[in-house]
């Protein structure tokens, strides 16, 4: 209320600050929230909103987006972009707190696989989800659903290759939490607006993976319920939202 005065700063013993949208509706910020809960790092939530974002927030994150984290014990350094925040938090536990964590393993090949899956999520998969959801030309629906399923097969295959139940095998990692918030929204919004559900025969492992992830405390604490997802997405539908360019329909 009244904004947050960034010039005052926080006591060095203050926990890390996590910036997110009100009601934590942002899937990118949810990734970092899950990470914070999984790693057990103490943090305070600061909600920020506005179009454009208030000046005090633009001083913190010049891109004006969430998530961002600010670390009082590291000279109030600010980190933004969800993937970078999450790798930072894992590095922080490993190198600064000298504790073992398994969200981002130390093995070089595992790390590369996690990063490749996350790159696939951001650069290949997520636009297929939003383009299908926001498509108004029913003749194109089948093609767009196919495109989305093709992009998702990478995950089904990862589960097959690793043996599951998580993408890299036994351990829940950054690869699982990176796509999870998007799958949550996909399942609810596509069922509601397109009457679409992920086919069990094609995605049996992925659907099992999804159920398993939903049981994790970190996921329960950070998720919106189905009704809320529909309310939030109704606003997007009404505004023909571009999802930052991920909706590739031309209107």
């Amino acid at each position, binding site marked *: 209320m009244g904004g947050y005065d960034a010039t005052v700063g926080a006591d060095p013993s203050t926990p890390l600050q996590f910036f997110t949208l009100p009601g934590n509706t942002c899937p990118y910020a949810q990734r970092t929230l899950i990470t914070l809960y999984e790693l057990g790092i103490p943090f305070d939530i600061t909600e920020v909103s506005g179009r454009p974002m208030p000046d005090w927030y633009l001083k913190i994150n010049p891109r004006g987006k969430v998530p961002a984290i600010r670390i009082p014990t590291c000279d109030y350094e600010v980190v933004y972009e969800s993937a970078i925040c999450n790798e930072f938090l894992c590095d922080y536990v490993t190198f600064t707190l000298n504790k073992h964590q398994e969200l981002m393993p130390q093995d070089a*090949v595992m*790390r590369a696989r996690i*990063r490749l899956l996350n790159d696939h999520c951001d650069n290949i998969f997520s636009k297929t989800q939003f383009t299908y959801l926001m498509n108004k030309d029913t003749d194109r629906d089948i093609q767009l659903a196919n495109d989305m399923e093709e992009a998702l097969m990478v995950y089904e295959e990862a589960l097959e290759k690793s043996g599951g139940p998580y993408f890299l095998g036994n351990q829940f990692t950054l690869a699982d939490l990176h796509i999870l918030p998007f799958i949550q929204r996909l399942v609810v919004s596509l069922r509601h607006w397109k009457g679409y559900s992920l086919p069990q025969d094609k995605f049996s492992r992925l659907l099992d993976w999804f159920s398993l992830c939903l049981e994790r405390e970190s996921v329960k604490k950070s998720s919106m319920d189905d009704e809320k997802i529909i309310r939030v997405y109704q606003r997007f539908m009404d505004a023909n939202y571009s999802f930052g360019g991920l909706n590739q329909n031309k209107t």
Partner: protein
Amino acid sequence: MKAFLGLSLIFALEIIQQSTALTFYPRGSRSRVPRRPTGEGTLQSRDKKNIMDAGSLERILALKGGYDSTIGPDPSNPIQFFTLAGGMCPYAARTLIVFHELGLPFETVEISGKPDWYLQINPRGKVPAIRVPADNNEVIYESSICDEYLCDMYNNMNQDSTSTLMPNDPIQRARIRLLNDQTDTVLSPAFFTYFMNNNDTKDEEMLQKLENALNFFENALKTYGGPYFNGLEFTLADVHLLPFFLRMVVTLRHYKKYTLSEEKYPRLLKWFELCSERNSVKVASKPDQVIIETYKKFKDMNYKFGGLNKN
């Protein structure tokens, strides 16, 4: 990360011109330094020592008939590095710099077009990609991911003398990654869009965007003390920007009559000069004239640069 595969046919000419630099080794007759089999898992330090004694680090495989990915290289072979024929791809240049900085043995395989055998290796069909025989032929692509993998792998192998290319400090790592994100999502589109713009009335606005993007880097050099982005040590943050910075400086001077001013970018210009003296950077660079000619072709075909050209 996008590669300019569409131009590979044009670059085939450059292979012929560079033929004096190529040595063709028909499969099976390639001379190999005898080494103990490394078995499964990652390269052990003792084996790394044997390979490092082998002399020349780079061999180029014959392109004729393509490369059969189903056979696969011997697990004791060095890492395979896939790049564009002619070596013009700035994304692949990043990974080439990293190989040289870390002194890791590798073999170069040049790609033209998107042959099926390469799509089996990298389904996105782009460069750079690396394949690691000692890690069960694992394939890694996207330049940032290749580069971080090589650093992770090197540091795991050399725990007493880790490389400073990617430091262990979490804050420094985050800074480096943020700078690299800035290079890819803010600076590159601003550069390509300005470069490819043919509408005179829009030039000033686009140049402003580019200069704003460059300010971020000038400020980083100021804030963290320089002379490199992370301070005293050369890191992935420098590697990531360098091939783009080189192409930007050369093409903007030649085609837009624009040079970065000493007044606005004193540290950035010094940074570039300093980096250009490094052997790894020299190896991965291209002469000005080659860049100018390549970019003329891009201009003529209204190249999209994988979406980075926003015109």
